[in-house]
């Protein structure tokens, strides 16, 4: 069914050579390993796209003696489910990545922050973790991993909110700076990485940076796991090379009637059909047209769908899932939702949408964390591209 895009099998390939790979990797110096990661071009797959090797180096450079490595498995972005699949089929790769990071930064304790919706994964994970602990003993690495269960809050995927949550508090994002690599969990230097990011490090340790680097395009290297849902005959999880155009993606995954694709979940962008050709999936490196980063959520909508309903659904999500601490996001999300409803009902003139677009821009400029800052992504891209649908 997939015609245009190359399917890859790096992440999900069932490889039972963890011990050998770890032995080989740990025999090398910290500096060499970090340099490999930086050479590979691996960037964080949790959404922000920070270079992973650099993150590890920053934490390693901090002189503190208590440090942490956390695997972010809070996966709450609507339309994303790839981390669940990685943790259930190749958790050994994720753990191996954590172990190497622990050696490099000097951490004895790691955590997997698992969203409560994935609690059914715990029994399986616990078995893998106990085997992993035996492996750590054989390799003489003083490192342990524990599972920390989330309690149901999308915002806890944001790294500083996640730390607050682990510290027994409300998941309210912190001010930055300071950044996690110096001031993370319990105020200690902490590396926090997405599940997929950690799984990729394993491939890089195993196959070397070049193989990873050869995939993808400038600034967006390697492969990426996509969660495909919506109006598609083949919903599911796909590992694809970075750098495809949205048109190619839709040709493979759409149902022939795709009108828009929401790239990156509710906090991502909505791309209408006329921009499929010019949109490239990757980090913001601007080759031609627009390139969109993504945590991997690809929701396809066909022409039977009302984009007003889509936007309403997203805003409803944000109104509930905002932590509520900062003004632009707490009040702004409510105003956007009520605003488009009022326009739809004819209680506000269509020009009110322009005021709301300005509001969304202010939220982007002033909100405290990525949640409030990115509401404008979906709001503005949907309202600007489907204005009629908002009004009539």
């Amino acid at each position, binding site marked *: 069914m997939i015609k245009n895009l190359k399917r890859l099998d790096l992440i999900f390939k069932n490889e039972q050579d963890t011990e050998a790979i770890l032995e080989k990797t740990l025999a090398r110096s910290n500096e060499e390993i970090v340099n490999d990661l930086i050479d590979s071009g691996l960037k964080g797959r949790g959404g922000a796209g920070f270079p992973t090797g650099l993150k590890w180096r920053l934490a390693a450079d901090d002189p503190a003696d208590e440090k942490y490595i956390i695997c972010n498995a809070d996966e709450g972005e609507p339309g*994303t489910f790839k981390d669940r699949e990685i943790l259930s089929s190749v958790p050994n790769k994720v753990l191996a990545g954590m172990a190497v990071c622990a050696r490099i930064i000097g951490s004895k304790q790691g955590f997997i922050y698992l969203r409560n919706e994935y609690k059914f994964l715990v029994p399986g994970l616990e078995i893998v973790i106990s085997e992993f602990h035996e492996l750590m003993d054989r390799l003489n690495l003083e490192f342990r991993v524990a599972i920390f*269960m989330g309690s149901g809050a999308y915002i806890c995927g944001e790294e500083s909110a996640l730390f607050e949550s682990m510290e027994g*508090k*409300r998941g309210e994002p912190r001010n930055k700076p300071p950044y996690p690599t110096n001031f993370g969990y319990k105020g200690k230097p902490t590396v926090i990485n997405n599940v997929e990011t950690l799984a990729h490090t394993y491939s890089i340790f195993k196959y070397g940076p070049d193989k990873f680097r050869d995939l993808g395009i400038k600034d967006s290297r390697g492969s990426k796991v996509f969660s495909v849902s*919506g109006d598609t005959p083949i919903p599911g999880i796909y590992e694809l090379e970075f750098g495809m155009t949205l048109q190619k993606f839709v040709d493979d995954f759409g149902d022939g009637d795709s009108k828009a694709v929401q790239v990156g979940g509710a906090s991502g962008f909505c791309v209408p059909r006329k921009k499929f050709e010019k949109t490239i999936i990757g980090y913001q490196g601007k080759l031609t047209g627009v390139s969109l980063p993504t945590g991997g959520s690809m929701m396809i909508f066909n022409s039977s769908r009302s984009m007003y309903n889509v936007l309403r659904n997203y805003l409803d999500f944000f109104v509930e899932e905002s932590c509520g601490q900062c003004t632009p996001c707490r009040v702004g999300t409510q105003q956007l939702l009520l605003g488009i409803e009022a326009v739809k009902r004819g209680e506000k003139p269509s020009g009110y949408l322009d005021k709301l677009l300005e509001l969304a821009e202010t939220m982007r400029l002033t909100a405290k964390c990525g949640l409030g800052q990115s509401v404008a992504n979906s709001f503005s891209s949907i309202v600007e591209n489907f204005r009629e649908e908002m009004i009539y």
Partner: protein
Amino acid sequence: MTRIQYSVTDMANKHGRSREALLPILQDIYQAKHVISDEDMVNVARELDISAAHVYGTATFYSFLETQQSGKYIIRLCKTITCMMHGKNPVLQELERILKIKPGQTTPDGLFTLKETNCLGQCHKGPAMLVNDNPHTQLTPESVREIIDSYRREALSY
């Protein structure tokens, strides 16, 4: 779900008495009783030497912790977009019909609590719901009838 009665002290012994223990303790209480009562919150506050109000403030932040009694089976039906597109509403109507409750309510026999929730990470198999910790996917009005029946049977067999 097994109804084990833990004491808050036991849980503090298990998870420790630092603030970091708060969520694991509250999760255990909720897991055991499907409610975190006033009394539990005060006891947790005492064990961890923090304010009871902060225990309350923290608990109410998280959608998987409740200070209201929930039923033996907590149904969380996804209301996010792709599940919505694939027929969440008919499923919800069917649930409301057979359970005779609205979202947010618990059946009078205390068996089921119905809730709507945000994306469960099962979007490729929507509509999806959790019953306690177990995911159920590709729901249809027919399939939820069977699922609810099987939980009813399970409850009876205790």
